[in-house]
């Protein structure tokens, strides 16, 4: 299983964290610190897997961002590597050639999408189309609620 997902920039700034195994706040900070040190300093020609504390961390760099997923030692690394790419492709499709800024200012979207991709540290959906459909349905619901909230009748209902 995937124990956590970590997006960290070339400068070591965290862009997203998602923990599927219980880590306390302290442990989380420690893991991030330790792991960004390991991964940011790895040479570009090395393989995408790092053995770390009895686990394996599968990572891949996209532009200035490192996507990392920590898995069990016996898990299939290549499979996870492609989950990362799958996620990136979905982000890319959603934002339209995604860049780090998109993930900074719309970090909540990155979370929503991740939740449609992974649950319990396991892959939930391998169809990009399906994920895109679900996310756009969510967006519509949020929009609909906003419109409703903006309507005069709603304001009247709220005040009375």
């Amino acid at each position, binding site marked *: 299983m995937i124990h956590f997902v970590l997006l960290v920039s070339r400068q070591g*700034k*965290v*862009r*997203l*964290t*998602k*923990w*599927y195994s*219980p*880590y*306390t*706040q302290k442990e989380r*900070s420690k893991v*991030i610190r330790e792991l960004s040190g390991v991964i940011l300093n790895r040479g570009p*020609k*090395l*393989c*995408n*897997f790092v053995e770390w504390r009895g686990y394996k961390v599968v990572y891949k760099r996209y532009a200035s961002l490192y996507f990392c997923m920590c898995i069990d030692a016996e898990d*299939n*690394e*290549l*499979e996870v*590597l*492609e*989950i990362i*790419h*799958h996620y990136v492709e979905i982000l890319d499709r959603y934002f339209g050639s995604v860049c780090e800024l998109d993930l*900074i*200012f*719309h*970090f*909540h*979207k990155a*979370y*929503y999408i991740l*939740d449609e991709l992974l*649950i*319990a540290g*396991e*892959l*939930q*959906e*391998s*169809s*990009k*189309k*399906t994920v895109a459909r*679900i996310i756009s349905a*969510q967006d519509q*619901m*949020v929009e609909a*609620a*906003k419109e409703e*909230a903006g309507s005069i009748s709603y304001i009247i209902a709220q005040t009375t």
Partner: protein
Amino acid sequence: MSGMRGLSVFISDIRNCQNKEAERLRVDKELGNIRTCFKNDKGLTPYKKKKYVWKMLYIHMLGYDVDFGHMEAVSLISAPKYPEKQVGYIVTSCLLNENHDFLRLAINAVRNDIIGRNETYQCLALTLVGNIGGREFAESLAPDVQKLLISSSCRPLVRKKAALCLLRLFRKNPDVVNADGWADRMAQLLDERDLGVLTSSMSLLVSLVSNDYEGYSSCLPKCVKILERLARNQDVPQEYTYYGIPSPWLQVKTMRALQYFPTIEDPSTRRSLFEVLQRILMGTDVVKNVNKNNASHAVLFEALSLVMHLNAEKEMMSQCVALLGKFISVREPNIRYLGLDCLPAVFVGELLICFMECVMCQMQRMFNRSSIRKNIMQYLSTAEFSMREELSLKAAILAEKFAPDLSWYVDVILQLIDNAGDFVSDDIWFRVVQFVTNNEDLQPYAASKVREYMDKIAIHETMVKVSAYILGEYGHLLARRPGCSARELFGILHEKLPTVSSPTIPLLLSTYAKLLMHAQPPDIELQKQIWNVFKKYESSIDVEIQQRAVEYFELSKKGAALMDVLAEMPKFPERQSSLIKKVEDVEDTADQSAIKLRAQQLPSNALVLADPQPVNGTPPPLKVPSISGIKVGISSNWLDHESASQTQSQPNGDLSKVQSQIPSADLLGEMVDPLAIEAPPVDMGSHQRVYREEDGIPDEVDGTAIVPIGDQANKVEPIGNITERFNALCLKDSGVLYEDPYIQIGVKAEWRGHHGRLVLFLGNKVTSPLTSVQALILPPAHLKLELSLVPDTIPPRAQVQCPLEVMNIRPSRDVAVLDFSYKFGTSMVSAKLRLPAVLNKFLQPLQLTSEEFFPQWRSLSGPPLKLQEVVRGVRPLSLSEMENLFNSFRVTICPGLDPNPNNLVASTTFYSENTRPMLCLARIETDPADRTQLRLTVASGDSTLTFELKEFIKEQLIAIPMGSRALVPAVPVPAAPLAQPPSPAVDANDPGAMLAGLL
């Protein structure tokens, strides 16, 4: 996020902070702000709450402690509207972990959403529980989640989340899923058509069977079905293929699930599974697209691991090993890493040995990975007997090569001796001794280490040897440690004496003598004990033991003299590891015997010459035992073209005639080279004996005892006859040009006009790389040749293609030579190979009618455009055979043109850069009474072409491998004696000549 301006502003502010300190100030300010707002909760709109909660998450993500506001986040879960609810769920699941108290407060709200009718809320709730649900959630929610999963009224959207949610709950508390009740449902879930639900369900199954497979056997055939469906790409919607691969993730998961079942009983299920696996193993190639490559190899590696698990037939296993060998040799680091990672799992039987070789050559750094070493060690204790020795030798070499430090090396070797003492040859412990002797720092460590091993109840004799030696030399360095006084060391060593064989006893005696010498202050009691031992062995029937006992006894009485005689061993000179040498020697011998074997398989009348010259480097000066050798050489070569009976009927006289036209040394070069067979393999026994002798005499172990004797010239012999291969390639466009035990060079050619494209296929046949690969083309003057870059290294079992562009400038029979060399291990192999870019390749078949032929024939009258020659010593061929021969080198026979049925006329077109396409005509007049002679007339519009073509045809007709001159390309062609035709005057009585005149 439109409308949430406050959040965007805050993010921008953070981004604009110049340093960590400024960022902290900004964050603190924001946290204070949020805290105040939350305190005056009353006026907080859901929108504001949402905004603050997002900010909290952002701050949390930056790594700051957010120790308040959790309540607000959790409270949003029960908000009535979707936007707030969504934020509540997602922020809660990010901020809190399963052990958090606040989460308990949410259980009810979450449960309400799960059992409620709103599909969207169900999804949010299931996601939260799936991501951070703990034990309490498991107990209170599992039945509800199960219901959703199997409900037929729920959409896939909900069900796939329910599957993973249940997985989480099961992990937290395995009791919530009971195999009795759930197995059938699980099996039904595997019939699911929606691949999203199926993927999640498969993850659930993996989790269930990894805990306990029992009860789930009904799922097994279904998994195989799913795998078949995916591997065959049946009924897989486009959106579920990933870079053309039907859901690689589901494939991997399914194979993972299958690995938790100990075996597959049902033969038909097993068979179908093996078919699918076979398809995966065979069908996966390294492709350019990284993602496709990763995905297909994710599947491949899982398939490999399943094959190993299922204990497949040997054939399939060796396929796997071959694949792994390929993986670790590919450039792509991920696949290489995984190949290595997989490695220990496939240590099966003898396959391991070839694999280890591969590993040794390539995977230097990797040996430091403890998992691999551990696995090798583990494997040693269970391996088949026959291979253990070789294996342990290689393990020792690996250890030596890649040891991070020397003490590590000592550890590993001692461990090796301890685990697999029977298979650790003496070279291995000699090598340890050498290291310890040469490194003072290592001496106390090694001594204390072997001392530890001596405490074991049963230790291997080899361990006794190495311990005795090291303790004898360096035991005194431990004197201050408890249990390590000279007397104690003697006691513990002497205990082992009754258990060892007689070759070890002298070694122990030496150790005793040394212990006695080192005992400071002199220990009378110890002296007495040791003298007793010496006395006891004075009458041993083993001469070695007796001699030592007597000598040591006498020496030890002398006191000071003993010191000199038994002084510490001097350092060994640095040399190449004896172990590596040993492996090389063994390999050489193996290769040699293989060659010998092949030699025996050759036709019995083939010439076998013992040629002591190495093939490497420059062509060896040719030494031929006797002239009869030449003749046999020719006829044996001949034999391969013709049936044996024809050869026997062939009069010897003709052969010598032919031979006289050829520069004999070069001819011999042709003959000797391919057929020369290695002298009998060097007797390894003599090497072994050296070690044996030294066994019991550690005091005399010096450099020579450990380092094997002498260098052996490495000789690599080609397989098959190079000349024959070349001749065959002159007539066809693809085939093998050269082959030896390590490499095979294939050729594939395409010819168009005066252009040609030849592709050399350099195939490494072994599991180690071939290095220093060099291919030089020595082009003759008439050809322009361009060879693309040849890589320096050919990876194991890989094939490299090297295209070669050829352009023909003018007619010539000169042959291009490929000077090819490479290095295998330490030996250079080189070969000069003629390339089949010969004259006839630039011919285009052309069939003429008599109306076209005769006017041309007449217009080309006489030398130098038309040349005629009587050729003798021709291979006896029937007319139809001769027709075939001509057609095969693209000189087309035009049937029916010549009124005499014993004659043939032929035509062709020749292409070169300097000439326009030239029509060439030929006439062959045979003599039915004597098939070994004929008259050949060749005509074309270019005198050189006429001459060259005539000579070429002659070469083809005569049973001499053509172009043997090419081995020495420096010889200019026209000067070659072969180029001088016997030039017989046209015989007036010759009926053929008269006919020619008529034509």
